[in-house]
């Protein structure tokens, strides 16, 4: 199993029956493939729909797309709405889970994921609202990029929100930000606690028992 699949599978376990979930672009979109059997999850796309599903070849509709403008389909029971309603659902605390990619997460559990100063500036899109408003924020990202840990003492990149995220799932570990600091909850299969610590640029709280991810 490659690293992205591992992360997506682990995140998918967090999605409960009946949850309203918004998946960010990139890695987070993979999560939809691994919903445990018997759980019915409702996916929102912030451009204005709940109940999105993958495109149906030959039945694409130019008025039915995801937030990237790509064709999707609508499941029975889908609902469509305008952008104010879409973000009312997000900001108003009606979204159970958002899964977002990350550039950095710091010791206080704060996420930076929308710009790298001096490089291309894509804009924050819905990310700031999603992190400020969702009931649970899960960050899905590689633990290390270009030799640098993405889990840091303090974000050097601009923050997406000052709100503490709820869970960070990487290819090496599951980490839960708390008011005492970052707690190492699980390690990836075959990865030791020491390897996680060596790949992390800030302190982690390590409980006596750190199980491996049960995928």
């Amino acid at each position, binding site marked *: 199993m490659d690293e992205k699949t591992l992360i997506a599978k682990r995140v998918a376990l967090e999605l409960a029956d009946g949850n309203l979930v918004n998946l960010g672009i990139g890695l987070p979109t993979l999560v939809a493939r691994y919903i445990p059997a018997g759980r019915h999850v409702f996916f929102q796309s912030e451009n204005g729909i709940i109940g999105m599903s993958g495109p149906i070849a030959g039945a694409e509709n130019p008025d039915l797309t995801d937030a990237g403008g790509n064709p999707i389909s609508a499941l029975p029971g889908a609902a469509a709405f305008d952008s104010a309603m879409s973000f009312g659902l997000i900001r108003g605390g009606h979204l159970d889970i958002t899964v977002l990619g990350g550039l950095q997460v710091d010791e206080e559990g704060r996420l930076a994921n929308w710009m790298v100063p001096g490089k291309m500036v894509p804009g924050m899109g819905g990310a700031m*609202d999603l992190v*400020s408003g969702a009931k649970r924020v899960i960050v899905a990202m590689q633990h290390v990029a270009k030799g640098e840990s993405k889990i840091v003492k303090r974000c050097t990149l*601009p923050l997406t929100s000052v709100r503490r995220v709820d869970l960070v799932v990487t290819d090496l570990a599951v980490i839960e930000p708390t008011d005492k600091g970052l707690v190492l909850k699980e390690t990836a299969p075959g990865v030791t606690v020491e390897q996680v610590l060596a790949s992390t640029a800030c302190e982690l709280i390590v409980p006596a028992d750190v199980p491996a991810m049960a995928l």
Partner: protein
Amino acid sequence: MKKLIALADAVALIPDGAVLMVGGFMGVGTPPRLIDELVRQGKRDLTLICNDTALPGKGVGKLIGAKAFRRVIASHIGLNPETQRQMIAGETEVELVPQGTLAERVRAAGFGLGGVLTPTGVGTVVEEGKQTVEVDGKVFLLEKPLKADFALINAKRADYYGNLEYALTARNFNPLMAMAAETVIAEAEDIVPVGVIPPDAVATPNVLVDYIVAKERRHG
């Protein structure tokens, strides 16, 4: 009520330098004929208020390519490298706004509210230069209403009064923007007799719409 207008005449109403709201999300729900005609008429120095700048050659991306904008207010420009190039080269001024804040700022203008009190952006670079308001111990950014000279709206169906119905994810910012501009010009896939769109399906009541772009005559 003479709302039907020829495409070229509708776009001719828009002077260089005008502030435009354009519905759509990655080009989906953006009025295609109005965009093409704006490019054809070579408009300049416009301000764009739109969720994003789409892709090059798609939706408002065509106007980005035509260098029609002096200023862009959007939540996302990441899929249009030309917007980023113009921004970095200083050719186009870009204001990035969180998407939910953008929606509420447009709504606030259209709904006669003084601004938006949102938790989004507090403690981030988005807060810079903005007033904060504390309500019951919690801090909110005061984000100001956004209005426009013209709103260019894309609808699934219009009737001759100007009632508009939208479809699926092509709805997005369109009904909000139709409330927030001095002059509202709507383009619809279909124009139907009054009474065909059921009252509960009308998302933009006719009184908000100034012009409906007439269909092209088909020959042959």
